């Protein structure tokens, strides 16, 4: 193994056996139920004798949570592992932290690993804060000497000085989480593996944790983070591995990875292509076949704050549509319209649309705050505005954080941002 590769994964796979209830008719008659139960009992008895785990359900299926995962991680790299739920992120971390064994392939790890898959692992409610610091520290792999050396720092970080000798079952949930994170934050391994643990506590404490994580990543330690928080991944990581359905979908640049992940997620979330959508209104003389929002990067439906954006609408019309007004609503996740762009207010209608074609609406600077937005699209015939086609949630796009004010801070409140100047007067 080369000197600077600290984690090497080769063809890693993890298989689980899962049980299903068979799809056949439900058991109604008592006789059927009894026969069925006896059958199950027989099978579990066989499992027991052969030493196999008992799986619920009547049909067994192999399920590969990870399949053929290979990557190298170099010393000092901060890598984000992202992917939709069920992509195998947590399984990967569990294998790397030795909790579970791979079913195939191998991992070679070069250095002392500490993993943080949960905040406050092993905390005991009956023990005091002080006792739990030692217990949790030891569980996370710190020696007693190390814990003693950092004890004051941990207590100060958690801000629980007054309650150090109170059993943690009397703590508020905020205090509990702060203490748990404080212990974890003071781990100093060569390789740190973290699973979505920063999503705890109040916003202020989260920022403190993020700061601490940033310190860690700047100390040249190798870190592997799983998170759904793209802003965090973007600010901490130098590389991302995108997992999708148990295998590596992309590996490399952070922004590319994030975009890949968001595209994957929306493909699975929306599921149906716009063309096949049935939940639409209108007389159908014109149909939208595709809608997407595109920014500088050229990746569909992912933009950074303040980027120039194009909303591209593809349509098909069997016969000529003489006049057509198009309106595009951008909605937030609560379906409030944030912005409506309509040809009838901004320009003239389109004339004589026919066959396949596209309509593009260009916005020089889309000043939305980072969030997820939905596109509602409608085409209608003036002056009565009879709908040709009308689809809500036709597309979904994500606006990602960017330091638009150059202040290092991301605007949090409201829906929009805009340039502004401040001055005082008498």
């Amino acid at each position: 193994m080369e000197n600077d590769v600290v984690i090497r994964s080769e063809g890693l796979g993890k298989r689980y056996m899962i049980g299903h209830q068979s799809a056949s008719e439900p058991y109604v008659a008592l006789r059927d139920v009894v026969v069925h139960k006896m059958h199950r009992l027989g099978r579990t008895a066989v499992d027991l004798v052969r030493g196999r785990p008992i799986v619920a359900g009547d049909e067994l299926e192999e399920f590969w949570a990870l399949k053929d995962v290979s990557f190298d991680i170099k010393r000092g790299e901060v890598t984000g592992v992202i992917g939709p739920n069920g992509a195998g992120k947590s399984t990967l971390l569990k294998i790397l932290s030795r909790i579970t064994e791979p079913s195939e392939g191998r991992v070679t790890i070069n250095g002392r690993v500490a993993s943080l898959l949960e905040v406050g692992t092993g905390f005991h409610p009956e023990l005091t804060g002080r006792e739990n610091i030692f217990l949790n520290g030891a569980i996370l792999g710190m020696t007693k000497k190390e814990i003693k050396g950092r004890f004051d720092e941990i207590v100060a970080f958690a801000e629980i000085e007054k309650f150090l000798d109170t059993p943690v079952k009397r703590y508020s949930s905020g205090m509990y989480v702060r203490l748990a994170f404080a212990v974890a934050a003071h781990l100093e391994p060569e390789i740190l593996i973290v699973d979505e643990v920063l999503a705890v506590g109040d916003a202020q404490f989260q920022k403190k944790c993020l700061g601490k994580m940033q310190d860690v990543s700047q100390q040249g330690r190798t870190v592997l983070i799983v998170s759904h928080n793209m802003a965090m991944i973007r600010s901490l990581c130098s590389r991302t591995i995108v997992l999708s359905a148990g295998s590596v979908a992309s590996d490399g640049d952070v922004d590319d990875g994030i975009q890949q992940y968001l595209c994957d997620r929306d493909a699975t979330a929306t599921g149906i292509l716009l063309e096949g959508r049935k939940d639409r209104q209108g007389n159908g003389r014109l149909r939208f076949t595709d809608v997407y929002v595109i920014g500088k990067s050229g990746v569909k439906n992912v933009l950074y704050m303040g980027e120039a954006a194009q909303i591209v609408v593809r349509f098909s019309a069997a016969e000529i549509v003489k006049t057509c007004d198009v309106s595009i609503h951008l909605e937030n996740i609560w379906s409030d319209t944030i912005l409506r762009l309509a040809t009838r207010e901004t320009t003239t209608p389109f004339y004589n649309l026919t066959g396949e074609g596209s309509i593009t609406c260009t916005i020089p600077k889309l000043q939305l705050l980072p969030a997820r937005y939905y596109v509602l699209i409608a085409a209608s015939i003036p002056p009565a505005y009879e709908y040709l086609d009308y689809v809500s949630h036709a597309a979904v796009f994500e606006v990602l954080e960017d330091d638009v004010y150059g202040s290092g801070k991301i605007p949090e409140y409201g829906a929009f941002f805009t340039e502004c100047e401040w001055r005082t007067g008498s």
Partner: protein
Amino acid sequence: MAGLTVAITKKDQAHRTPERVLVLEAGRAERHYWRDLWSYRELFAILAWRDIAIRYKQTVIGIAWALVRPLLTMLIFTVIFGRLAHLPSDGAVPYPVMVFAGMLPWMLFSTVLSEASNSLVSNANLISKVYFPRLIVPCASSVVALVEFAITFILLVLMMLWFGVLPDFRIVFLPLFIALAVLASLGPALYITALNVKYRDFRFIIPFIVQFGMYVSPVGFSSAVIPEKWRLLYRLNPVVGVIDGFRWCLLRGQSELYMPGLYLNLVVIAALLWLGMSYFRKTERTFADLI
């Protein structure tokens, strides 16, 4: 690069990392199992301490519970076996003292068995979230039993003073039999705790074994009561040798130590321990998936 490597190696030594390069593969046996176990001794100590610290939290009489249970059982056994059934004691030893000297190792055995057997399942949150050699958990939980044993032992000393039964030189062998009691229990306990991860049925079997075992083992009576022809067969129960050994050490040899029986006991204990250990080691890599 060379400088960096040296620095990290030094740091590693400070942390006593047993192996610099770790390879994780399907079915790979842990090559440094015992060394790995040793490097986690601090965790062992702290888990044992935790189990002791929380055992009597939020109870009124606290650690006194460790005394009440054996004391009451001893009284009942003395009345039933000694007074009602008129079973003989060993030599001139008062019946309560004989019962209590047998009760101690039995309590040690059964507490280790029940604590260790449930230990993995009751620490499921640890097993599924952090790595450490799993053997630590059942072993640490048996420390509780040893602490309780020490407390009950004080009671036995008081009782022996009260009845004027003083031990002789044989007491120096007592630590051996204490160790034997723990080992006798740890073998089956490791087997059962590993099975318990997969099949929770064993959680219900343990209380039964403990209850049944107390009457099958010579706790309330002397093993001399057993007819001659069954003597050796009776020693297949590993606790018999331990209880006899305790009485022999404490009661000036007035309880006879049947040597062939003891050897058989040692063989049974070693076999159970080997069986428990090997099953535990074989299955411990899958604990996190099954628990």
